[in-house]
């Protein structure tokens, strides 16, 4: 009779108490179910005993705060009776001053709402555009009207054209400069040879040390020009904006013009008049020069002027005059001043002579050091570009032309596309009014930050 598998036979094979016995799989499961959570708890207890709270950090601190990575309490101040130990403005202000933005602002965000830490080694100052848009998307001020556009959400979203490019704005400078002429080919250089001028021959970033090709010969080898105009017209210091080679120095005669535009006043002298002096000083300079000259050239006191021919074409007798030294100096000075006021100075400056005034008035150059006073800009960061990519200097013929690029040119690179350059507000604007910055009196000692032992009494 062959082997059979009836239900009865199969049932007889089963031990009815099988489920009471432990199986390896069940044993493993029990051990792991107890062991792994217990291991997790032991881990946390171990960290708590070692007073290591860093495990609860929601992410690495910014580079500036990295030194506080192990000292959560530096920012997360625990107060008796309070559950929350969130980082408050008070904790930030213990180390930093954060001056207010504007007196008229309706809303002041908390420090942490713009400067979000625990996001790894990011720049905390690189705040999001949305932080600014909290107010500027629908800008309201405490009193009066807002002086700026009131619906700005970002550089690409409703940001108005730069103020200096609006129709009513012209270059306030009074120097008559034709950029197009200066950028022509084959201009005659200082030594008479043709030259092709470049923007950098006259415009330099601060701190750039390089010979000026068209400077006064005494300055030509190398010069550093430093502007002191580091504040915006409304008095707000622009922290960081003017440090290093970021903005262009205003062009000066001595570094950019002197080699070609020699201020010659008389054919007897090769040197020109000094630039940048008051006209009274120039007058005295001329008197002195001519007095010195006539003292060494008394023969010139006799002036022989070639006469005109008669109506018949026959030459007349030359007219000779004998002058005193004082007369000679006065005549030569008057001639030189006539040349200067009418031609040499006037080529670049605006002169106006008031009734009865001995000398004309030269209008102040009024060269703007900062065209966008509420923004910061770094030429150094853009030096891979040609100047004319942004500034239409080659076609500008009027000194009043504003050669600032339009916002569209900036936006061609600074946009939110995948390959766009940084376009958040902080790149150009500063929230805090650093002119109001107050000094901070530090409260930490070194061992608080380094986690070392506090100094013993008597030690520093």
């Amino acid at each position: 009779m062959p082997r059979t598998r009836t239900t009865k036979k199969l049932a007889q094979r089963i031990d009815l108490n099988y489920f009471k016995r432990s199986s390896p799989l069940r044993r493993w499961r029990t051990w792991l179910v107890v062991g792994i959570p217990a291991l997790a708890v032991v881990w946390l207890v171990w960290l708590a005993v070692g007073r290591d709270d860093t495990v609860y950090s929601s992410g690495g601190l910014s580079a500036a705060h990295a030194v506080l990575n192990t000292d959560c309490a530096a920012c997360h101040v625990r107060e008796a009776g309070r559950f929350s130990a969130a980082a408050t403005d008070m904790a930030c202000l213990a180390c930093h001053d954060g001056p207010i933005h504007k007196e008229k602002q309706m809303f002041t965000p908390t420090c942490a709402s713009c400067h979000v830490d625990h996001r790894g080694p990011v720049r905390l100052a690189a705040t999001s555009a949305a932080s600014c848009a909290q107010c500027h998307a629908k800008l309201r001020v405490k009193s009066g009207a807002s002086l700026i556009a009131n619906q700005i959400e970002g550089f690409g979203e409703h940001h108005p054209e730069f103020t200096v490019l609006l129709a009513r704005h012209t270059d306030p400078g009074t120097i008559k400069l034709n950029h197009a002429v200066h950028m022509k080919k084959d201009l005659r250089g200082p030594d008479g040879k043709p030259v092709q001028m470049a923007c950098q021959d006259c415009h330099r970033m601060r701190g750039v040390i390089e010979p000026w090709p068209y400077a006064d010969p005494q300055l030509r080898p190398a010069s550093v020009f430093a502007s002191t105009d580091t504040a915006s017209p409304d008095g707000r210091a622009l922290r960081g904006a003017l440090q290093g080679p970021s903005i262009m120095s205003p062009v000066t005669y001595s570094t950019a013009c002197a080699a070609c535009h020699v201020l010659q006043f008389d054919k007897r002298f090769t040197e020109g008049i000094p630039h940048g002096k008051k006209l009274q000083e120039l007058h005295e300079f001329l008197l002195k020069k001519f007095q010195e000259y006539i003292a060494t050239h008394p023969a010139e006191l006799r002036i022989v002027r070639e006469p005109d021919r008669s109506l018949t074409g026959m030459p007349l007798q030359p007219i000779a005059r004998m002058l005193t030294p004082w007369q000679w100096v006065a005549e030569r000075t008057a001639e030189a001043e006539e040349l200067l006021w009418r031609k040499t100075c006037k080529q670049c400056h605006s002169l106006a002579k008031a009734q009865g005034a001995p000398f004309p008035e030269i209008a102040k150059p009024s060269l703007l050091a900062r065209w966008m006073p509420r923004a910061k800009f770094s030429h150094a960061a853009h030096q891979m570009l040609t100047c004319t990519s942004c500034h239409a200097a080659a076609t500008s013929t009027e000194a009043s032309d504003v050669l600032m690029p339009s916002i569209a040119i900036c936006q061609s690179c600074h946009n939110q596309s995948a390959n766009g350059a940084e376009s958040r507000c902080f790149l150009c604007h500063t929230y805090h009014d650093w002119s109001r910055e107050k000094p901070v009196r530090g409260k930490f000692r070194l061992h608080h930050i380094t986690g070392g032992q506090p100094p013993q009494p008597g030690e520093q």
Partner: protein
Amino acid sequence: MRIDATHRKWLRASLGIAAAAATAYILNALMSAHGPRGGSALGLTFGIVGSAFMLFAGLLGARNRVPVWRLGRAQTWMRGHLWLGLLSLPLILFHSGFQFGGTLTTVLMWLLILVVASGILGTALQHYLPSRMTGDVPMETIFDEIASVRAQLNREADQLVAAVCGALDAAAANPAVPAPSESREPADAVLLDAEEGLPLRRFYLSEMRPFLNRPHEKQAALADPQRAAAAFEQLRTLLPLSVHSIVKDLENICEEERQLRRQVRLHHLLHDWLLVHIPLSLALLVLGAVHAWMALRY
């Protein structure tokens, strides 16, 4: 549990919740000042709902411990466990803004990923393997009784061979087989003389008994059905016709042993993932509670 048409409602609801959450997340990411943050109102909502789903999924184990409680149908609990547990991953990712954050949150995120991944693997295995088990292992028995059944198979085989070849000597006594409580004497057994029974005795002691005694040895010839069939066919040619029915029984015992091996393998596939899934789930819930407490504080 099979993923069949009865899951359709859960699938739709889960897709709806996931889509709504994704929409809210994307809109929030586009509009908020600093992108998605776990501490924002929406981020906290994602965290609370995701944690609630995880907790519900974890309660399945508690519910299974007290099956007599009237706490809903086991199938409903299982479906909720599957779908809400799966939903917890995207919700927690939305909560974290797809950032792993610090040490504890990184550990939590990896635990969640491992738990969900092991759950998906387990669900797939439990969907496909039971039907395969039914087809491949018709002689399936209770898994915990396999060792006992194996001992009985050994004993049965010993008795069959002894009935034909005479008592197996003490040296050849099967150490893995406890003393039989009742002996099975085949009715049609014919005692062969020593020479006639030698092929069977030799085959049994050298091939079949080691195969039955060492279930973890995979290289045995009898572990392969074709090689086993060939071996038994050859054995039959060496034995008189009168004992072929005994040989058939022995072949059947080998087949049952092969099926038990297959059942063990499939059982491990069906259940071993739980060794990862359950302990890590509990660790996740414990650490998640600590994370919630500390995050609300800081």
